[in-house]
């Protein structure tokens, strides 16, 4: 890697070469994938970027166009909506 890229922004990895010499390799790593808040499964449709670059993206690129999109997976969002509907129905019945 050229000297200009040997910065602290990259991750240092100690490697042992076939000759037996220990060297440092500079490795670029993206942050981990976004995960569902309920089931910890990986979310689709969201880019992997560092927070500085991520904040510069458009709103549509940072979320999924759905209720709870971008924080819950499709399965968990569906379940949570069903739970909310049941609560609303119970409240309405008690009022009547």
């Amino acid at each position: 890697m050229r000297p200009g890229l040997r910065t602290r922004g990259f991750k240092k990895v100690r490697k042992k070469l076939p000759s037996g010499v220990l060297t440092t390799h500079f490795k670029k790593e993206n942050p981990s994938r976004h995960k569902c808040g309920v089931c910890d499964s990986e979310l689709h449709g969201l880019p992997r970027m560092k927070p500085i670059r991520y904040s510069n993206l458009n709103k549509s690129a940072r979320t999924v166009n759905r209720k709870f999109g971008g924080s819950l997976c499709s399965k968990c969002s569906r379940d949570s909506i069903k739970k909310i509907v049941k609560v609303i129905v119970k409240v309405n019945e008690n009022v009547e």
Partner: protein
Amino acid sequence: MLNNGRVCVKTAGRESGSVCVVISKVDDAHVLIDGMVKRRNCSIRHLEPVPKTVKITKSSSKKEIVDALIELTLVSADDAKKFLNKKPKTPKSKPVKVKAVKEKKKVKKKVVKKEVKKEEKKVKKVEKKPVKKKNSKK
């Protein structure tokens, strides 16, 4: 379960969480819905039925359906007002750029006199050469 007039909540897609009403049955797996959503065919699997019904027909307008949902207190009046007054987005027309027309430079006419002078000089040079050669041989 999903008969005409049944109130439902959408659980999938961009309209998830919004209240709608079943208008008619299309086939075993699909129904036509309207309300706080766009009028369209929808899969039964994407709907969560609510134990309430509304009296409507296929010809009833969107406003009539939304008013019926407000009476059931499933939709607030403010949300319904925003939804009905929502205008479809139209792309903005780009401003037309007008190119500034540059004035053409005037072309100067070439002067013919200079060419005449050059021809005269050439003639003079040619006359001098043979004189020198004769002297060098001797």
